[in-house]
């Protein structure tokens, strides 16, 4: 811990609203105009809305996606999750 217990903490009269953005590296297996298939170390909930940043040899592409399917798969003896993502914008 980086000393958080030593610091004085302050509670808020009105809690601030926000969001945690939690990124995970994925391998993109293939894609079409409307869908992307990726392999991830973590599963995802069906219909969960996520953001995908994809990078090839050109500039990266950012898109909003919806999880259409999440299936556990065994790759090189390790459990991974193949996600089918529908592009929503």
């Amino acid at each position, binding site marked *: 811990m980086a000393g958080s217990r030593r610091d004085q903490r302050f509670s808020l009269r009105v809690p601030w609203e926000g*969001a945690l953005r*939690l*990124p*995970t590296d994925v391998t993109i297996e293939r894609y079409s105009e409307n869908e*992307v298939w990726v392999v991830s170390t973590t599963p995802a909930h069906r219909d969960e809305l996520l953001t995908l*940043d994809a*990078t*090839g040899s050109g500039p990266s592409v950012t*898109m909003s996606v919806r999880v259409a399917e999440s299936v556990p798969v065994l790759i090189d003896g390790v459990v991974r999750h193949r996600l089918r993502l529908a592009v929503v914008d």
Partner: protein
Amino acid sequence: MKPNALEGPEVIGMLARHVPTRLIDISRTGCLLESRQRVEHGTVGELRLQVDRDIFVDDVLVTRCVLVEGSGSLYLVGAEFVQTRRPGERSIRRAVTAILRGLATDQPLRHDSRRKIVVNSLHSTGEEVS
């Protein structure tokens, strides 16, 4: 996605979840959040907070996540600010430092007083706030 948008021998990606949170308390080095989703210990992410019309952002490392008993699926998430970059103009760390400096000197804010934002101070005793 346009089929030709990504070309190259290997296409890699970063998939990001967005977990709604509420900030319960804060210090210069970390904060306590409330969430309806479990977040794994050790997860690194970006915390984005909206305060009035301003948005503040910082990277955090999740150090604990506990289910609040009897709450259904409400979690308390402890997080430390990841101090690998100089705090930018929209840094949460910078905003908190400004608020705390104002409390010490009792200087007025533009829109609201800092004392209205902060309800009380919690001196850390090593015990977690719950």
